[in-house]
């Protein structure tokens, strides 16, 4: 556990994180997870975060070492899509029993790895540590090492048991596992001056595929996406990329930063959400590639593509302006999405009456203020009851949030749109923004609202 504790301290001290650097030494030592309040906490654990970050690697076996709860209660429930391999959707767990808890689960883990390699022959096995097996002292790193040596396949320990912290910490510990055991262990078949990594993009609902055709058109190759629609070999050879984009700012900053340090891969933080952000991201990718030696004409080609795509997107959004003008949106989400989506929604005439900044960095908050003006309605932590009131009293026309709070809106008989990880619609890039606005319009103008809000005849007036 000493190494895990050290790892956590290291992850908490992130030089590339503005929020972290603004802290005093003492604050920094406490780490970036808020102390959880028993009986008033929500959100996933570090294991959950690690799994979210790595499960999108599609051709490996993801083996959860722990009791049935950790995998059995949650497997195959995320929308990360694959263009081929399906093994990532198979649930593997050691499902330890009482005897294992007493005598240790290492043997069962070792046997499990063997069974998986025999039956499914994946290029690698990722082994996830959990609370119970950490507590009883199962050394998954030693087991993985032994299994790797014996079976000649990479077996990667992901040491992020749930009780060490939040989902966000788990994302970062997952990144550390890749840095320690995967990245730089293989070589790509060939390289080009146009090779990039996209870090922190999970291809939810296939969003990467809304962006990839544009990169393809520019001749830019995604050497590796970490980890959306990724193959093991791609991640293992991702150290040969020329530049990187870091997508979900707080999730895998350590991966981007350390790859820059170790392999000289420059990165920028960007977003695929919203029209101007999408354009900025394309620009930055081109800029970094040119700086690293790609022909300068890439810049012009990129600008031309941006001009064409922006014009096309605005043209497609135009028909919605009239119907969306003045409609009020309550946006409950975290981090980057809060500002990049805000700008785009405002551009089609929607009014943002509130946005949550619970997971946002200081920089994020400043961007929001910039975009929304001084009267920005930023909520640090809005309780479900407050959201419900706001909708019930019709101070907002629609709520955009994650699946868990959907019923706050629906029970208030107000429109709601899923913009988190379980969503079925893809909202990235120019295509995605058009899709998002179309979904908002569909939702606001669905004929059910009037019907469901009308009371039963016998409740409306005495018969």
């Amino acid at each position, binding site marked *: 556990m000493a190494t895990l504790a050290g790892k956590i301290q290291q992850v908490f001290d992130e030089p590339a994180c503005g929020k972290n650097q603004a802290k005093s030494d003492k604050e920094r030592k406490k780490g970036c997870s808020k102390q959880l309040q028993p009986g008033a906490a929500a959100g996933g654990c570090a294991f959950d975060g690690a799994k979210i970050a790595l499960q999108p690697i599609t051709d490996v076996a993801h083996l959860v070492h722990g009791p049935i*709860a950790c995998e059995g209660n949650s497997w195959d429930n995320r929308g990360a899509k694959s263009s081929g391999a399906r093994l990532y959707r198979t*649930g*593997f767990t050691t499902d330890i029993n009482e005897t294992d*808890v007493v005598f240790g689960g290492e043997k069962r883990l070792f046997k499990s790895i063997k069974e*998986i390699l025999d039956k499914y022959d994946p290029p690698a096995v990722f082994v996830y540590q959990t*609370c119970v097996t950490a507590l009883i002292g199962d050394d998954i790193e030693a087991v993985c090492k032994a299994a790797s040596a014996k079976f000649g396949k990479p077996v990667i320990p992901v040491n992020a048991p749930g009780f060490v912290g939040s989902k966000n910490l788990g994302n970062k510990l997952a990144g550390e596992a890749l840095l320690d055991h995967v990245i730089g262990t293989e070589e790509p078949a060939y390289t080009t001056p146009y090779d990039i990594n996209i870090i922190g993009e999970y291809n939810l609902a296939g969003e990467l595929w809304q962006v990839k055709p544009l990169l393809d058109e520019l001749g830019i190759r995604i050497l590796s996406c970490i980890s959306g629609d990724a193959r093991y070999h791609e991640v293992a050879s991702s150290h040969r990329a020329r530049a990187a984009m870091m997508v979900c700012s707080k999730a895998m900053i350590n991966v981007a930063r350390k790859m820059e340090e170790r392999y000289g891969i420059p990165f920028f933080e960007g977003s695929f959400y919203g029209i101007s952000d999408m354009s900025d991201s394309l620009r930055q990718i081109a800029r970094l590639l040119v700086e690293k030696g790609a022909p300068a004409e890439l810049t012009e080609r990129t600008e031309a593509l941006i001009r064409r795509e922006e014009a096309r997107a605005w043209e497609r959004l135009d028909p919605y302006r009239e119907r969306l003008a003045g409609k009020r949106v309550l946006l409950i989400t975290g981090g980057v999405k809060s500002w990049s989506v805000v700008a785009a929604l405002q551009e089609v005439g929607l009014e943002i009456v509130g946005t949550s900044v619970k997971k946002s960095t200081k920089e994020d908050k400043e961007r929001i203020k910039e975009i929304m003006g001084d009267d920005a309605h930023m909520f640090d932590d809005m309780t479900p009851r407050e959201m419900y009131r706001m909708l019930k009293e019709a101070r907002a026309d629609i709520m955009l949030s994650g699946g868990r709070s959907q019923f706050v809106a629906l029970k208030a008989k107000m429109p709601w749109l899923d913009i988190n990880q379980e969503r079925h619609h893809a909202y990235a890039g120019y295509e995605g923004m058009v899709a998002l606005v179309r979904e908002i319009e569909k939702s606001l103008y669905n004929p059910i609202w009037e019907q469901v809000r009308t009371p039963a005849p016998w409740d409306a007036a005495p018969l």
Partner: protein
Amino acid sequence: MATVITSKKACSVNPLKMSQPIGAALAFLGLNRCMPLLHGSQGCTAFGLVLFVRHFREAIPLQTTAMNEVATILGGMDNVEQAIVNICNRARPEVIGLCSTGLTETKGDDVEGYLKLIRAKHPELDGVPIVYVSTPDYKDAFQDGWSKAVTGIVRQLAQPAAVRAERQVNVLAGSHLTPGDLEEIREMAEAFGLDPILVPDLSGSLDGHIPEDFSPTTLGGTRLEQIRAMGASRATIAVGEQMRPAAEALEQKTGVPYTLFERLTGLTANDRLLAFLSRESGRQVPDKYRRQRSQLVDAMLDGHFFFGGKRVAVGAEPDLLWDVGCWLAEMGCELEAVTTAHSPLLERLPSAEVTIGDLEDLERLAHGCDLLITHSHGRQAAERLGIPFLRMGMPTFDRLGAAHRLSVGYRGTRDLVFEIGNLFLANAHDNRPDTWTPAKEERHAGAPATAH
């Protein structure tokens, strides 16, 4: 008679099983104004929460003691105390259901001891009962957690009564029943003029009603005073073998005799229930049910052509497997069975074998079957097998209306005959010129299928 086979694999592949604590938590969700609380890391609660939200498509109250590494090592007393105080201040529940997890059981937290100390320290919480149930994740399964929670509820909250309420009956409902099933059972009892108390009652809390205001706890479900009044009932109807311990505990404590109904899908199973209700109430079976019985008999006559000789693979927790499996056998189907944990019913299943295993085992057994029945996680297997797939059980996250799927009563059974019969009909193979030509591959037919 079935041989019970326990999987010898070290690694469970595509779990069928879910864990005990969330089974217990779901039972608590069937109580009115309740807050279930898992004593474990926050992830234990988050996973359960997401699972229930996706299955029921409802807001789910579920809290956590938010154990971290240090608190686990030092013991979770402070966390349990803070959680209870916070919940009482914020959500004002009428009852709290506290479940341990693998983490805190491994550490060995003495939660009952904690609760005594917390009670002594916080007299202001005296009005809020806390039902504690020990549910380590590494033992048993979802259904067992539910069973233990209900046993805990009746043992702690039901009171012996001096005066009998002549028309009141208790219904102890197993975890395999949906809110729609419970509604049907309630209607049946009420049709005989009886006054049923359902415990737990998901049909009150998770039936999809639209409340007038936002509530941080459950809204609807069995009320505390109803549970206390169970001791006055004339009889207890326990539905599902898993409810036997709770029914026995209730009988011991209050003297109310129980009758166990192992299942309520199928003609004879429901005949037995209605005969019982008729005896207890002293009333004739209402015309409505005579009509429904006749409709079911007709459906069985119309449908049996398509059921006879079909092979059906079912993966479910023991009580649901028993319910569906026995009924399929009564319709003339052959059964391949996989389940999650031990139960006294398993050896009596109408199949040659029953495997305590996972969906990988089920997928292997389902080769050549005509239908796959399990929860939504069977979708990948069904796709690979290319056979019809009926979602039953928890979780059902990729179809609407999981809460209202009805499979008990004459009416529920009748609709199930139609639903499954239609799957067989839609998948019927037409004869072709080469139907009776011996196929070359037949030599390999016995070869095991390749994985994934």
